[in-house]
Each structure stands twice: as C-alpha cells, then as structure tokens.
C-alpha cells in the first residue's frame, strides 16, 4: 500500500501542507479571512467544535452548498469533515471534489465499530489518533495524514500534548525493539505488523502527523510544532476569539517561526481575548470527543 502511486499522490498533498495552519471555517467570509491570514488550507464545517459541544444534538457533514460557497472564494485546498464510518458522506464529499476528507470524531459517529475503508477513495483522508495503535490502524485503512485528536472545542492544549507525546514515545520504543519483539508489539497495539516493521526501520510514520484539538494561541502552535507536529489545525480557537483575523495571522506566524520565541512573542501581542476554554476535568466523560 505504501508503494502505491495513488498513495503517493495523496501523501503528496499532506506534504505540501506541512509547516502551515489549517483553519476551521463555517462560511465564505470566514474562509476568506483564513486565506488572507495565510492559512494553507481551510476545513469546511457546519459549526466549530465549541458550538457543537455547546449545542449538542447530532453533528453531521456540512451542507454541500456551504462547501461549494467556500470552494468558490478561496484558492487554497478545502477540506471537509464526515462522520466516522459514514462512507456515504465521504462519497458526497468526494463528488464535491473537496481536497481532503477528515473522518472526524468531532462529528457524531455513524458507526461505532468500523471506520471508512479510505484506501478505496481517490481523495486523501485525515483521521485523529490518541496513541500509536489508533494511528497505525488508520494508516492501515488508508489515511494520508494523521492528527492528534486532542479535545476539540475545549481551547485546552493538554490533550493534544498528551496524544502527540504518546504517539512519539511509542515510535521511539519500537526503534529500540529486537526483530523478535515486533509481532508481539503489533498484537499489543492492535496494529498491522508491516507498519511496525516500517517504524523500526525508519523511526517515523509513513504519513505526516499534525496537531489538532485545543490550539488557541500562537504559543500553543509553537509548542505543538516543537513536540513534533508537522502542521497545526485550529478549530474553535480562531473564530471564537475576539479578533479572528489578528489571531489567525499570529498563529500562522508562530507556526512558521516556532523555533524563534521572539517572533512568537511579537505575534502574541495585543490579540485580545482568546477563547474561554474548558478544563478537561470539567467535561463529563460521556461528552469527551476524543474517545469516539
């Protein structure tokens, strides 16, 4: 699968998005603000995660007319979310020619047992992960990009940090295992052994891994980049803040210059209020999005 030509074209787009910021947008105006701020892609959805969390009910794929409206106003790639396991929503998104599909835990899952067989699609997919087992199962299903799940709509970076560290620790561990240990490691992680062997050989995932879920400030973006994220997704963090255009620009700058604290400091000045955010401990367990 990793040698497949289609796979190369899919991962190719993920490569092009590295070092950038992908912003959640719900309409054409927001998409334009995101592009003008320097976003490398936008994610079209019905409501940002913080509103999904606040309003409850079933969260579904965005209205196709909204997606078309967004596609019309920007020249950067347009992504859209479908529900976990909802391959018919994914087919619709492919028919709409979005550039990337996020099979996302932020929406209400359509299938509690199975994810979409993503290798079948021509459009590349991204999925969230909390640990290496999840990451490798998603690659086995054909994703071209991974991201941490974090806790979407919380404005709290702690879960994204946990997920990024967990995945990277597990990769480092594999590079130190003997060949005899790889099959058992695959069994324990619930992951394809070929991918375990790949990790042992190369020490990194065969697809880019981005950060998502709780990024609200330029420093949050710089933190995730330094922890090994190759780009960042910002959901509610921008359009739930008091100055979306200013904050969007600042997060873009901080992502590019994540190694330069002076630039991150400069970018962080006079941004007004960040989104309020939630302590993860205050979210009832059955309302966590990451466990979907």
């Amino acid at each position, binding site marked *: 699968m990793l040698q497949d030509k289609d796979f*190369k074209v899919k991962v190719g787009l993920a*490569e092009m*998005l590295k070092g950038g910021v992908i912003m959640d947008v719900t309409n054409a105006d927001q998409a334009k603000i995101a592009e003008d*701020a320097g976003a490398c892609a936008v994610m079209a959805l019905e409501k940002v995660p913080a509103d999904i969390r606040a309003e409850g009910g079933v969260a579904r794929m965005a209205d196709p007319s909204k997606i078309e409206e967004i596609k019309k106003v920007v020249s950067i790639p347009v992504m859209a979310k479908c529900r976990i396991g909802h391959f018919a929503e994914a087919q619709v998104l492919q028919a709409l020619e979005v550039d990337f599909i996020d099979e996302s835990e932020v929406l209400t899952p359509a299938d509690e047992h199975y994810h979409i067989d993503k290798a079948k699609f021509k459009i590349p997919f991204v999925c969230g992960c909390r640990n290496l087992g999840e990451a490798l199962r998603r690659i086995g299903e054909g994703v071209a990009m991974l991201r941490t799940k974090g806790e979407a709509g919380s404005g709290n970076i702690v879960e994204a940090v946990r997920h990024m560290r967990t995945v990277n620790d597990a990769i480092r561990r594999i590079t130190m295992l003997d060949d005899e240990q790889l099959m058992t490691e695959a069994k324990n992680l619930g992951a394809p052994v070929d991918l375990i062997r790949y990790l042992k050989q190369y020490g990194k995932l065969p697809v880019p891994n981005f950060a998502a879920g709780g990024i609200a400030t330029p420093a949050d973006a710089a933190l995730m980049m330094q922890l090994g994220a190759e780009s960042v997704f910002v959901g509610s963090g921008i359009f739930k803040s008091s100055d979306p255009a200013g904050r969007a620009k600042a997060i873009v700058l901080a992502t590019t210059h994540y190694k330069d604290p002076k630039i991150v400091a400069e970018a962080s000045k006079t941004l007004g209020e960040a989104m309020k955010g939630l302590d993860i401990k205050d979210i009832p367990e059955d309302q966590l999005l990451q466990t979907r």
Partner: protein
Amino acid sequence: MKKLVGVLAIQGDFQAHIAVLNKLKVDSREIRNKRDLENVSHLVIPGGESTTVSKITRANGFWDMLAGFEGPVMGTCMGSVLMASRIVDPDADGWGMLDMEIRRNAYGRQISSFTAAGRIEISEEPFEMVFIRAPKIIKIGKNVKPIAWLGDEITGVMAGNKIALTFHPELSESETLHEYFISLPGGPD
C-alpha cells in the same frame, strides 16, 4: 563559495527537499528569514501554498531579497509559481526570475492530481513526475529554455541559473534533477 543549499521553510514540503539533499551529501539549511540566507550558495523553493508563503515573506523586505537571489534557484510546483514573472488564477506578480506566465492549480483540484512518466533534457531515462494541484506554464519568453516535458506539455524551464519545475522531483525516486541543480556553480550567473 562553499556549497550550502538553502531551502525556503516558510510552509510546504521543504523536508522532502532536505531529505534528497541529505542523500546527496550536500549541506543544507532551512530558510525562514533574511538572516538565514547568509552564505547560502543555492536556493530551493519547495511545493506548498503560494498565497501563504507570499503573505509571510512580504513582511520586512524578505520577499525582495528572495526575488533578488543571484545564485542558482530551483523551484518546484509552488516554487515555480513564485519564480514566474506573471501568475494567473488568482492574478499576481511573481519574482520575475524567469520570463514566463504560469497558471495556478491548472489541472484542477486534488482529485486531478497524478503521477506520470515524463521526459527531462538532462537524461535519457523517463522521469517520474508527481503533480499535486499543479500549475501549468502557459507562456515563456524567448530566453527561457524548456527542460522537462509531459507529452508535448512543458513542465520545466530554465534561464541562466534559474530552474522552475511544475512537478515535484523531491517526491520521486530519482535524484537526477537535484544532482544537476547542485552541480551549477554558486554565486551570480
């Protein structure tokens, strides 16, 4: 001048270029600001989003410094867009390193991205070309020389020590084009 290849690392697939340069055992450096350009002999402009990269580089005169880089420059996909004199869809000015007009996302959206075997001037072997939301060169000036083709279509051009490719040699198995690029003498053409 000692060979040191700078790779513009504002946004895009700069790591893929650095991986190729590492394979070729040539020194490289990620370029994010004017200071990083010091002592750089060759410059690579990777794939990525041209709107993003032009927004960030326009601050502090960085854009003009990149546009005026005198040593060899190789731009791939987005890089070829920025190097052009004229950009179409949406319309904008490029650096004018090469007298050409280029159309962004000319093959369509991601669903129309593809790989195919093309032809390059410097080798008899077919060259695997990876096109990701790729641009098309639509007009070239008389001192700009085609150096890569997919069928009849021009996919790469050169003028002086500047090379623009609409595909991604950094994502294919062959290092031929990078090898050729770093063989060009550093310093002004």
